[in-house]
């Protein structure tokens, strides 16, 4: 089943991708210190399994999956844990507990790491367990655990794998570089994923502004004589790489609201995730490194870097020739959905596909935007890939109209930022919608808590009542027994008087 190659709405944006692609991927050496955030970008923290002062080796597990959505984390240098503390991080809250490791300079490899040439002999369940232990997460930006996604897909019988190489957001080109240089790895990762899913087909979706990547991927598929794996070229339109939009572009089906792509028989994985899996097969390394674009007008030599997770971003910028001009913002991700970070001491996270060092020129005219009232022009609705009416959502959000927000689909917003992009009144719509979502989420949580408390109270009341009743019954029975015995024994008992 081939899709229409197109999702609804969206917009062609200026790409800013050419400079880093002039250079090959730069391998960054082990840094003297890494900062590993327990929340690598998925919003949930893993549980540390090391303590302050512990010695760790390259590849040692330092945290295991905790709350749903978190993934195992490994030491990316050998050395000693010097701190486990809350630090600034690239997370929604701006903070995460971090494990800080200082290098011993030896870069000792954990002896337990072993390659997995035998992966074809593993059954899907074993593969999922292994990928979970290896801390493999979606490297496209969500950092959602791949194992969890595979389980969800298998539970729903999804048999089609889509490898996301769309990379639609401006500035980001790490997947492009990866596909150009390591298409064979992506292909190997695709085979592993297909096996874990028992999938019958795989589509590698790449936007048409990456001809070299398309060529490399096609050549790799042809050279391997891989069956069931095809390369699908999509027009370059933002936000093609958003999971739901990509599923629609590739298959023509829509992912149900608040549902999984697996419900339409598809599961999506990023090409970089596939390459990380290939690395796990070939070298035994869990998810320890990633390719990241270091770019923006604020760096001297924009490039793609393969760096260890936890490497302070300052070291990445150094690899790109250092700062230039007057950098105003350090953005993890692209300029549409990226998160502006307060400091370059934050460690590289698995979710970071790009470090954008933005000068004023990169941020104009947003940085000097002037908000005017909404004139209901509806330009936002024409570009919204979720088919929402942002102008009406904005009105509902201003009025704090909960049912209006829900009815107009606040939960279907994918936070792509296109409504902001086209708004003539320069309203920060995406930010407003995120805020409205978090307010609703808090209220839902508070309501759930209140309901739980009320139910608990009612249950306790019933329990006490029952206990009292039971006690009463027991007492009555005992009394009846006692009285019965007594009446038989004593002639002056109440029944026997008068």
């Amino acid at each position, binding site marked *: 089943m081939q899709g229409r190659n197109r999702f609804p709405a969206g917009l062609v944006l200026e790409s800013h991708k050419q400079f880093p692609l002039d250079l090959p991927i730069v391998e960054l050496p082990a840094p003297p210190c890494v900062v590993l955030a327990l929340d690598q970008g998925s919003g949930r923290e893993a549980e540390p399994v090391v303590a302050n002062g512990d010695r760790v080796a390259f590849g040692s597990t330092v945290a295991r999956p905790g709350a749903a959505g978190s993934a195992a984390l490994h030491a990316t240098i050998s050395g000693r844990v010097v701190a486990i503390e809350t630090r600034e991080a690239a997370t929604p809250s701006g903070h995460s507990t971090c494990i800080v490791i200082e290098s011993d300079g030896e870069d000792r490899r954990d002896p337990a790491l072993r390659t997995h040439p035998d992966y074809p002999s593993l059954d899907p369940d074993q593969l999922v367990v292994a990928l979970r232990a290896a801390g493999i997460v979606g490297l496209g930006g969500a950092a959602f655990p791949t194992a969890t996604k595979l389980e969800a897909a298998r539970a729903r019988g999804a048999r089609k794998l889509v490898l996301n190489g769309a990379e639609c957001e401006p500035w980001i080109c790490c997947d492009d570089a990866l596909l150009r240089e390591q298409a064979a790895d992506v292909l190997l990762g695709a085979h592993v994923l297909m096996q874990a899913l028992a999938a019958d087909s795989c589509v590698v979706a790449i936007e048409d502004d990456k001809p070299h990547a398309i060529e490399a991927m096609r050549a790799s598929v042809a050279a391997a004589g891989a069956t069931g794996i095809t390369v699908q070229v999509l027009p370059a339109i933002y936000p093609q790489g958003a999971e739901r939009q990509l599923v629609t572009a590739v298959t023509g089906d829509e992912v149900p609201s608040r549902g999984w792509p697996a419900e339409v028989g598809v599961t999506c994985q990023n090409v970089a995730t596939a390459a990380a899996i290939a690395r796990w097969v070939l070298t035994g390394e869990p998810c320890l490194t990633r390719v990241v674009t270091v770019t923006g007008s604020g760096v001297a030599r924009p490039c793609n870097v393969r760096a260890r997770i936890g490497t302070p971003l300052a070291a990445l910028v150094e690899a790109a020739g250092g700062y230039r001009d007057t950098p105003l*913002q350090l953005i993890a991700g692209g300029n*549409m959905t990226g998160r502006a970070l307060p400091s370059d001491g934050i460690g590289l996270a698995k979710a970071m596909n790009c470090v954008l060092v933005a000068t004023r020129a990169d*941020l104009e005219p947003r940085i000097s935007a002037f908000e*005017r*009232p909404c004139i209901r022009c509806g330009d936002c609705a024409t570009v919204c890939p979720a088919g929402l009416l942002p102008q009406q959502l904005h009105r509902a959000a201003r009025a704090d109209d909960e049912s209006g927000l829900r009815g107009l689909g606040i939960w279907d917003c994918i936070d792509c930022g296109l409504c902001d992009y086209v708004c003539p009144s*320069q309203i920060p719509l995406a930010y407003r919608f995120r805020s409205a979502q978090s307010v609703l989420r808090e209220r839902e949580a508070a309501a759930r808590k209140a309901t739980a408390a009320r139910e608990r109270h009612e249950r306790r009341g019933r329990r006490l009542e029952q206990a009292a009743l039971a006690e009463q019954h027991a007492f009555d029975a005992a009394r009846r027994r006692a009285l019965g015995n007594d009446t038989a024994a004593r002639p002056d008992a109440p029944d026997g008087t008068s």
Partner: protein
Amino acid sequence: MRFDTAPAPHVIGGYSVPRVMFPVLLALVPAGMVHVALFGPGLLLQVAVASVTALACEAAALRWRKRDAGVALRDGSVLVTAFLLAFAVTPLLPWWLNVFGTAAAVLLGKHVFGGLGQNPFNPAMVGYAILLVAFPVEMTRWPVPLDADSAHSWADLARLTVLYFYGGDASGGWDGYTGATTLDSIRNGLDLRYTLPEMLERDDLVGPLGARGFAWINLAALVGGAYLLWRRIVRWHIPVAVLAGLMVPAMVASWLDPGAHLGGLFQAFAGATMLGAFFIATDPVSAATSDRGRLWYGAGIGLITWVIRTWGGYPDGIAFAVLLMNVAVPLIDRYTVPRIYGHPRD
């Protein structure tokens, strides 16, 4: 190194309200030129008075409301209101009526509701409707267009315009220079039991393209409208729906009873049709907001215009049609929310 933070997205397209409003003014230029050529320089006076009044009222209202006046004045929206009102009224309107209408448009049409973006009604049409209801004689006195009567000269019209502009008495010697518009004359003629073909043969009312004077202005407004479509300031839904809502019933009626009903094309190029379809009904603030809603909204305006022109007490119906459909906008918006991605199709 420390950095500033800001919420995503970090880039925007650089569109702005002034960049929406000023092309609208530009798009009115062709219609304005034709207007001045056929009806004399009155339009220029009306535009000048309306613009000054509108800016003054906006500034005053913002001051009262303790808002930054400079920013709002520069957004161009109040000038669009002024221009549309100036185009809608007769070029012979005395200046104080223009001031009254414009002040009503800006203050009652816009600022009592909270200014830009908050007005449920099209401000220009609020001003126009108040003027038409309060001063029907002054509002329906139009110059006879120059393409209807070659005996008059543009210079004569200019003198007449200035005379009326200052409220002078122009009854003596200027009889043949003013009159009802074509749509008005045809309506009155039909009331007097003339048949439509008789009326359409009158050279002073009907020219090669349709209504004398107005047909050419409509053509120029269509050109301006095409420019707005091309610049994507206006999208096609409302103009197309207005024209369809007006022309389809007109065509059907004139096919059924050609003696009593004007045809669709005549209607499309008469009165304020094109101005209404491309410039007035498309005011986004007071229009329905989804594509489907805009089709209903526009079609409603077209249909009500046709009904008023055919059976109503006013020669043209655009203003009242727009105001009536403004009332219906919340209802339309409620029932035309498009299907959201991933939600079931009905």
